[in-house]
């Protein structure tokens, strides 16, 4: 009888012990997602919406007074909005991704020829008409095309001489503001689903976040830097392949996106002292070494970025520096896609096939 009681006690204690330990790992997953949503995604999308609204107001003011000063303000605000959106791009997963709203806000590159053609037609421009246009003619990239002429002295002149261009600017900025509001709403509604998605399946929050981190790095290597470095044309550098090259904001866009990437990894969002991120999760899983290796790779990306001043010029005058940045991103990409995803058991795929 005593032996039975002892065995029972051991069983109960071990069950309790197991539960506590597991809860830690499980709770940490939850901590990470809540931190990301509450202190990262939600305030960021809020800020983006506000910035877009301000942008729209400034464009309206510019339409009233087409002066260089007003244009400068609008151009400056476009950069602010653009940089904020570069940060939002890290959160394009789950319901946000399936809504395709990111495409409506920013699709780069814009179709310059078709955009110019549509500005030459005589059909009346309406808010509804603009909202029905293809995403390659709308959003941040199209607005950059309108606001930043290749010859900067021509930007103001184009608006002064072409009222239709100005009207399109007003309407497409309003459209952007509406979409920013919708995006904010989607994230707010999706946030509880995301933070509750503690499962390890593809739909799991951690899984989606990891895939987003990987996608950002791969896209940076391939499109944001690789194309400009001439990877697809035999090595001829081409600054027009840089995102936001007309506004000269390419490097700022890169920096903004990467800043958010780091926040997503480290969890060190503004206003949260807990700062629970992947680095802590890896530590909890017993792989501090991997967290350290990733931190070193992040620092290398920062250092390579700090070497650059104006990406367009660096690309032509000091290509090696840009190539080094790409190399640093590649290293971080390998660590994220192989080591991090492999270690925490994330499925790096959008296709849920079987395996044995």
């Amino acid at each position: 009888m005593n032996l039975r009681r002892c065995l029972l006690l051991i069983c109960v204690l071990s069950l309790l012990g197991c539960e506590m330990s597991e809860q830690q790992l499980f709770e940490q997953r939850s901590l990470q997602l809540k931190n990301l949503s509450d202190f990262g995604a939600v305030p960021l999308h809020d800020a983006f919406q506000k910035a877009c609204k301000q942008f729209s107001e400034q464009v309206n003011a510019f339409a009233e007074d087409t002066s260089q000063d007003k244009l400068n303000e609008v151009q400056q605000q476009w950069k602010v909005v653009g940089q904020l959106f570069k940060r939002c791009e890290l959160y394009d997963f789950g319901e946000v991704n399936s809504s395709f709203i990111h495409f409506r806000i920013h699709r780069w590159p814009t179709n310059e020829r078709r955009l110019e053609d549509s500005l030459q037609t005589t059909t009346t421009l309406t808010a509804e008409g603009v909202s029905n246009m293809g995403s390659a003619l709308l959003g941040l990239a199209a607005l950059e095309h309108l606001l930043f002429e290749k010859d900067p002295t021509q930007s103001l002149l184009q608006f002064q001489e072409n009222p239709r261009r100005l009207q399109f600017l007003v309407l497409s900025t309003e459209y952007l503001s509406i979409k920013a509001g919708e995006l904010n709403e989607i994230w707010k509604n999706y946030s509880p689903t995301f933070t509750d998605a503690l499962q390890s399946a593809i739909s799991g929050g951690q899984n989606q976040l990891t895939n987003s981190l990987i996608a950002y790095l791969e896209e940076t290597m391939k499109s944001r830097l690789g194309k400009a470095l001439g990877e697809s044309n035999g090595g001829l550098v081409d600054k027009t392949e840089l995102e936001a090259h007309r506004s000269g904001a390419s490097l700022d866009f890169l920096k903004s996106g990467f800043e958010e990437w780091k926040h997503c990894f480290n969890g060190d969002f503004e206003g949260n002292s807990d700062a629970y991120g992947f680095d802590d999760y890896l530590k909890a899983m017993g792989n501090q070494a991997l967290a350290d290796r990733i931190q070193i790779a992040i620092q290398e990306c920062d250092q390579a970025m700090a070497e650059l001043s104006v990406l367009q010029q660096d690309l032509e005058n000091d290509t090696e520096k840009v190539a080094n940045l790409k190399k640093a991103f590649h290293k971080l990409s390998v660590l994220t896609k192989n080591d991090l995803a492999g270690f925490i058991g994330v499925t790096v795929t959008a296709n849920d096939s079987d395996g044995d």
Partner: protein
Amino acid sequence: MGIEHGWRSQFTATEPGISLGIYRITFGLLMCFSLGRFMYKGWIESCYLETKFHFTYQYFHWVKPLESPVLMYGLVIVAMVSALFIALGIAYRFWIFTFFLLFTYLELIEKSWYLNHYYFVAIIAFLLCWMPADRRLSMSQLFKKTIPKHVPKLFSNILKLQISLVYFFAGLAKLNGDWLFQGMPLNIWLKAKVDIAWIGNYLAYDEMAYLFSYAGVLYDLSIPFLLWNRRSRPFALVAVVVFHCMTALLFNIGMFPWIMIVGSLIFVTDKEWQHLFSRLKEKASPQYLPAPQQGVPHWLKALFVIHFAIQLILPNRHLLYSENQLWTERHYRFAWNVMLIEKTGHAIFKVKDHPSGKTWVVYPSTHLSTIQEKQMSFQADMIWQYAQFLKSEYQASGLIDFSVYVEDWVAFNGRPSQLYLPLDLDLLDTSEDSIYDFVTPLKQ
């Protein structure tokens, strides 16, 4: 009834064929469902239609998908119908041959979708082609007034042997350092599953990975013997169900558990089925009268011998090499290496034109689907094959004298990523076989 005792009787005796019939029905129904699921999940598009390039198997590079989506869908539907008719036992021989040919064709199209259980299904279908599995429990028998002949016991034994080999070699393959001493890759996979209700609580522990690892080895190596043995069979059948339900719950392995559970039914003898039927129907069990024995033709026996000789050779080919097979994956397929590795890779290719010195960087996602890219990034023969594809692409664009290089980083069973192939290796100077010789040694 040809009752003989001892080892020889397993090959010379006959039996009514109930076990074979039940196996035929369950196999057919499962395959019908499996192909329907394949279609439902949109895998016809992602496996056969979405990409221009396909990774084909050595010696089968001539196998290509049909370009028309209608025809590809049509083929899968015909395979499904075949499986259904196999289960029903109507024109069995015709449909099992049709199923075998279609299923094998579908599997040979795309190597990146290789799964051990697809290979297993193809083998079973091939073996069933030569067996009179429709003698009992089939629609065709309903219309015949004569008493069906018994079938040689050899046939059910052939299937049992095949299943036993799968388990046995899967067990042997688990006897490696990572599995036994690191609890890998289960350590990674189980920790990712802490969200599972009830048992999820315990999966975060390293000890659980070891427990599952050793239980897996023990199960694989012992279950064939336990299933063959009359006394242990009931317990073994329960173990089969529990084990495979567990794997279905924990891992994303599709039809594999169900195929193996169904497979274990072949071990239940006709006598046991008759006994079970009689208990269920209270003495209303089917009566199988003694019937003339039927021998197995010598050519068929020879075919089976050749088949099993191949089945013994394929999982052992890697013994010819001193390398870590789990890392190089030389002769890894068709060898029952089931769930042994957690690998992720990151590959970027470079094409260098020698006369001009120009270099192009190629991201595999430009040409490959997600699964193709994922599988290729850590399998040397597929890397070689993709390089051949790039060769033809760049030749078509006018290049003559050029090389193809790869920068491929691979992480394996929790180890840090390491370069998989030398950076200066011109992939065009290697062959599908020799590429494995260049895989960099695994850093422990």
